[in-house]
């Protein structure tokens, strides 16, 4: 079996409070040894020189759309995971809104099958209700056995209180987290952007922030009654964060993620009807964005997740109201976090790793991941936090290019991605 030495890097492993120079030895798909520089005891067949670079537990994206089965003109598991690897992600949690919807152990297993050609670990998030119709719960126990790590009707939020109660209660029993895309569609009406000054100017109907935070408030209330764990997907509104804080203060087990685009942009980016800025939840006001940044710094937000949502050009190059919701993001998430959050002095590199690896692993309960403790799985992300680069969307590994990041200047780039001891992306 091969043994690999990661030599001369700086190890950041927030799970163990480590932030220091260290050599790391990987063997048989596991972390075999962590030692002071030059002090490793295990001999290695192969050495990766990572001087000046950060060695971190592999990044885990809690929220991606890989579009397979069923919508492979947008993406497939092979292309989506290749993009993930290029962005430094060693694991992705794949949302169930595929065709068919992933509400069955058969689809869950099919997605995990080696035949799909995944480059990084794929952990399916299964539909919380059959067909994501919000009517009848899917078989949580069987889904968990098949490999699902969480339950969600992402994109088709569970509106019915009773069904949400049942989902939380059963998920708690089975030991899975419920991820809710918090949106009261009776208030948002599928409107194409945030309701505010910009939507008024553009003559577009808006989604009020209340359509999100009122649902977060309800979900937290139901979780406090039913027990179990709630994870709020892609928080976008300031008031939703208040709800999360209140929930935690009363001991409800609630976590939250934010996307790069919500902490990078505001609704004003929509002001030329550029559909690359159309996503759901929509980009919100400057005040909302400021609140997200503060919550990333103060710990209210637990994770950065991309909501990578690939779409073909013909689905985006249409009237703003008609265009598909969503934006790709796997390849720029780390760079966005470093550029916007760390480079500005708001948060430390260790906190960046916590948001991208340590916490996501805990939220979906991926044991042996999210840390580089000896004996844990050899999923490693090696990145250069200082590297200045410009994203070339034409070079993307994704099948789709629906994002505005092309040509944008960033700091921070993943240079090598190691999954189970195997290098799957290497720009060292």
């Amino acid at each position: 079996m091969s043994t690999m030495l990661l030599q001369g890097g700086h190890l950041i492993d927030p799970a163990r409070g480590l932030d220091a120079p260290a050599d790391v030895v990987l063997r048989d798909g596991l972390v075999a040894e962590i030692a002071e520089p030059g002090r490793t005891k295990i001999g290695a067949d192969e050495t990766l020189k990572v001087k000046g670079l950060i060695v971190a537990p592999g990044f885990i994206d809690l929220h991606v759309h890989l579009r397979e089965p069923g919508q492979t003109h947008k993406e497939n598991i092979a292309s989506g995971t290749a993009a993930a690897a290029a962005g430094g992600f060693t694991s992705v949690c794949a949302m169930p809104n595929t065709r068919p919807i992933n509400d069955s152990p058969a689809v869950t297993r099919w997605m995990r099958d080696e035949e799909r050609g995944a480059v990084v670990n794929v952990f399916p998030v299964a539909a919380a209700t059959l067909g994501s119709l919000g009517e009848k719960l899917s078989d949580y126990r069987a889904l968990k056995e098949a490999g699902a790590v969480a339950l969600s009707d992402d994109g088709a939020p569970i509106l019915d209180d009773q069904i949400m109660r049942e989902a939380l209660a059963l998920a708690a029993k089975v030991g899975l987290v419920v991820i809710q895309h918090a949106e009261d569609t009776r208030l948002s009406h599928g409107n194409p952007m945030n309701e505010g000054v910009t939507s008024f100017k553009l003559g577009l109907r808006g989604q009020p922030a209340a359509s999100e935070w009122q649902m977060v408030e309800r979900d937290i209330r139901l979780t406090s009654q039913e027990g179990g764990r709630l994870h709020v997907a892609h928080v976008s509104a300031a008031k939703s964060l208040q709800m999360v804080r209140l929930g935690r203060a009363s001991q409800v087990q609630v976590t939250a993620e934010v996307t790069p685009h919500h902490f990078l942009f505001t609704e004003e980016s929509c002001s030329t009807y550029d559909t690359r800025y159309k996503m759901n939840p929509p980009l919100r006001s400057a005040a909302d964005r400021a609140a997200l940044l503060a919550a990333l710094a103060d710990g209210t937000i637990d994770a950065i997740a991309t909501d990578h949502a690939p779409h073909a050009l013909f689905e985006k190059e249409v009237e703003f109201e008609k265009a598909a919701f969503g934006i790709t993001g796997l390849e720029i998430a780390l760079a966005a976090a470093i550029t916007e959050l760390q480079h500005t002095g708001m948060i430390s590199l260790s906190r960046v790793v916590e948001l991208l690896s340590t916490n996501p692993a805990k939220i979906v309960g991926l044991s042996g991941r999210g840390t580089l403790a000896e004996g844990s799985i050899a999923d490693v992300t090696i990145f250069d936090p200082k590297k200045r680069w410009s994203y070339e969307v034409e070079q993307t590994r994704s099948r789709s290019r629906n994002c505005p990041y092309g040509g944008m200047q960033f700091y921070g780039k993943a240079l090598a991605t190691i999954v189970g001891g195997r290098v799957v992306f290497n720009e060292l």
Partner: protein
Amino acid sequence: MKAKLRSLLGIEPLDSRQILDILSLAKRMNPARPRQTLRGRRIALLFYENSTRTRTSFEIAAKSLGASTVVIHATTASIEKGESLKDTGQTLQSIVDAIVMRHPSSGAPVLLSRLIDIPIINAGDGMHAHPSQALLDAFTIMNHKKSLKGLKIVTIGDIFHSRVARSDAHLFSKLGARVVFCGPDVLLPETARELAPGVEIVREMEEAIDGADVVMMLRVQQERLSGMQINVDEYVRRYQLTAAKLKLAKADAIVMHPGPMIRGMEMTDEVADCGQSVVLEQVLNGVKVRMAILAMLLGGKR
């Protein structure tokens, strides 16, 4: 010097000089005295939404300049079959010189202008903009008031759904008028204040109209209300322009309406037909202003 205007997508991107240039050119236009400025030019009138007034106005304007026109309705085979706006636009681009476009979706002309290279004239998009209407409104006001500077122009009714109100506000604001919006909360959100500099919101019609130079009435767009709770009797009581309310405006105030007007709803018969109403004048001015727009965008180059 600013680059020559290529398309007319809205009022917001224009500066006051460009606006005044179009308005002064419009003064020299008259459909009763046709010109050959655009002889041999082909203009497509691409209408994804029904319109009699605007379409006819543009068609007469184009023909009065010697251009030939072709009207394409959304019910046209290719569009009904699901052809995208991009494909329709690219197809038209190879056979016409400009597209006058009406579309129910806000921003559609902006999208099309990014995808093709011929001039696009926005003839109304969703709730967003109706620049030729705003220009003809300004033209009409200037026929009566010389300049817009310092005028109090009050727009009353369904502001939220109105592309005319948005374009008017941008234009009136750029030319130095006070823009007062008046209407109920559901049809006039507080965010409307941020539309352009100098926009005010006054909820009570009597207060809004007090001392006004221009009273612009809007139609209640019942087809766009979709679920909003509007009590028609209550609306008429609070926001209908009656002769008594009109007395609160300046004695020489003019009454305008972008049409189509619903008598007994926005205004009484008495007001609609009174000497202060310039509604019919707006229609004739519409043709002149649209002639100026087409001549400005298409004239003098091949």
